[in-house]
């Protein structure tokens, strides 16, 4: 595949994610998405760039801000939106919701809403790959805020001492909820600066440049597969919406927001496409295809039947049931 074809594919994937997140936001405002959402608009390049660098059988673990990771690993916008809308066709049969999107068919093994909890799981998946001799890699995506919880440190240490094929990708969007990460972290780079303490190499990357992300993840994955152990990647990015729901994010300085919006990952990718000679028409066609795909997904999700009541009592146990007594 030529550089431009591959980049165009990644661009389209980012465009679809962007539009799906916008749809989720609008559906939330319209009362058709309940509970909470943590949108990943602005973070698309991290998921798409990383995914492009991974094998289909590599493992991915994400956070409650994980729609982009589910879609980057092959979950359809329709199944994601249907999940948010409590439909029986949802990705998790409407039992997970926005915070737990999971696409096991793409080895995207879950979105976890307890900050940091999935880092040890990714370590375990990498350990399992080693035990089974598969050369698979496991990737944990997490926020800057997660670098201050114990599980982060336990995971990095264990991954390092066992030299496991795991990649820790921090999506540093400068905030843990409403608090600037710098105000609560004794390190300038919350993830990357901690890595050397665990004898681990770290890369800081422009998380809004899908090509740059793909390259650092590809080299980390190569090292991991070669038995050279784990890597920390700190991808600098920014969220376009507030932390969750309809948070207006007024705690962020206007000039900061403006600066980051000018460095939109989709614009960065578009500029790269243009530099490779891809025509504006081709890009426009791609945008339109993405819009049409998401519009169709919204319509299908709206039309889908509501959650099946019977599902309340399935899937607790491996036998499919929920019996607790004999």
């Amino acid at each position: 595949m030529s550089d431009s074809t591959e980049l165009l594919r990644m661009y389209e994937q980012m465009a679809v994610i962007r539009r799906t997140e916008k749809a989720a936001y609008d559906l939330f405002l319209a009362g058709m998405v309940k509970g909470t959402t943590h949108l990943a608009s602005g973070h698309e390049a991290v998921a798409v760039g990383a995914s492009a660098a991974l094998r289909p059988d590599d493992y991915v673990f994400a956070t409650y801000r994980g729609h982009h990771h589910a879609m980057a690993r092959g979950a359809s916008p329709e199944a994601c939106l249907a999940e948010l809308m409590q439909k029986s066709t949802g990705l998790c049969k409407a039992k997970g919701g926005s915070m737990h999107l999971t696409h096991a068919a793409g080895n995207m093994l879950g979105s976890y809403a307890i900050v940091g909890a999935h880092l040890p799981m990714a370590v375990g998946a990498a350990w399992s790959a080693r035990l089974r001799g598969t050369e698979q890699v496991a990737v944990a995506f997490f926020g800057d805020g997660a670098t201050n919880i114990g599980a982060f440190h336990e995971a990095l240490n264990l991954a390092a001492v066992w030299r496991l094929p795991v990649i820790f990708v921090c999506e540093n969007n400068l905030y843990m909820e409403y608090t600037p990460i710098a105000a609560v972290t004794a390190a300038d780079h919350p993830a990357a600066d901690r890595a050397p303490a665990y004898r681990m190499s770290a890369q800081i990357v422009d998380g809004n440049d899908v090509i740059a992300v793909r390259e650092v993840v590809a080299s980390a994955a190569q090292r991991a597969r070669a038995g050279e152990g784990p890597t920390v990647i700190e991808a600098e990015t920014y969220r376009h919406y507030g932390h969750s729901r309809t948070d207006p994010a007024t705690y962020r300085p206007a000039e900061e927001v403006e600066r980051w919006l000018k460095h939109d990952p989709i614009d960065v990718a578009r500029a790269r496409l243009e530099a490779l000679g891809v025509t504006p028409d081709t890009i426009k066609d791609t945008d339109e295809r993405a819009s049409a795909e998401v519009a169709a997904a919204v319509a299908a999700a709206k039309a889908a039947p509501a959650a099946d009541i019977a599902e309340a009592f399935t899937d607790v146990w491996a036998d499919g049931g929920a019996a607790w007594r004999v």
Partner: protein
Amino acid sequence: MAGVKTDSGTITYREAVAEGIAREMRRDPTVICLGEDIGPAGGVFKTTAGLFEEFGPQRIWDTPISEQAIVGAAMGAAMTGIRPVAEIMFSDFLACCWDYLANEIPKVRYMTGGQVTVPLVIRTANGGGLGFGAQHSQAVENWALAIPGLKIVAPSTPADVIGLMASAIRSDDPVVFFEHKGLFASKGPRPPEGHHVELGRAAVVREGTDVTLLALASTVHTALAAADRLAEDGISAEVVDLRCLIPMDLTTVLASVAKTSRLVTVEENPYQAGWGATVVSVVVDEGFHLLDAPVRRVASANVPLPFADALENEVMPTADKVVAAVRSVANF
């Protein structure tokens, strides 16, 4: 051959733990153990003695003191084709990784709509009576009982350790396996190869007609001692070993109560929120007509466990307390 001893005859509860794990490791190469000091050291309680020698470092992994990483990594491995057996040295330390037992392991299958399974065992040394003080003595099966999605096993004999370990490791569901510290030195018959005990099957370990003593792990022995004493008074106690809290074998409990019309639970966990409360709520709901007397619960007092033997004895269930409880309902 170095490794786990396989001579016949009797076996201690402690040896049964290693033997039970070894039997499963021999038949299934995906069974892998991890935990603190479980390798060459054989575990602080020697419950993994011989495993490292027999199976080597690719199957028996010493970990750092990282309870979250131990259980979290076990979870990630379980989701991806391994059957991990993770040791948490003392059950009190489960609090250090409780997120995984409360929020992650029991929920991931359900909240993903059945997309993943988590076939793992978390083994842990549980219980008091040994003067270890408040942070190394608790019986915490009831903590796990508060969380839908965990299977909970607490054997009382070496044969059950082996039989339930086989079922726990083969189970595709997460199992928390409580090994009682006070029973490690106890001995019993070594079960034959292939022995397994289905999860969720209580055992009537002594038949009787006047009262049902429902017990778990260490308290099975407390109840049996009480039953001996009660027999001298002409009271015939039936002792039921629950063996698992989930699945909870209420069929056997209700059948026993149908026979005896009286129920006393014998629990090592604190009275507040102890497992007996759940059993009793079902018995009074579904078996009220079977009862001839109030139900009594003999459990630990609602205080942290003290260090001194006399104080520990004061707050924990004893045969004396069981006898007194039975007498209080015998002629009701």
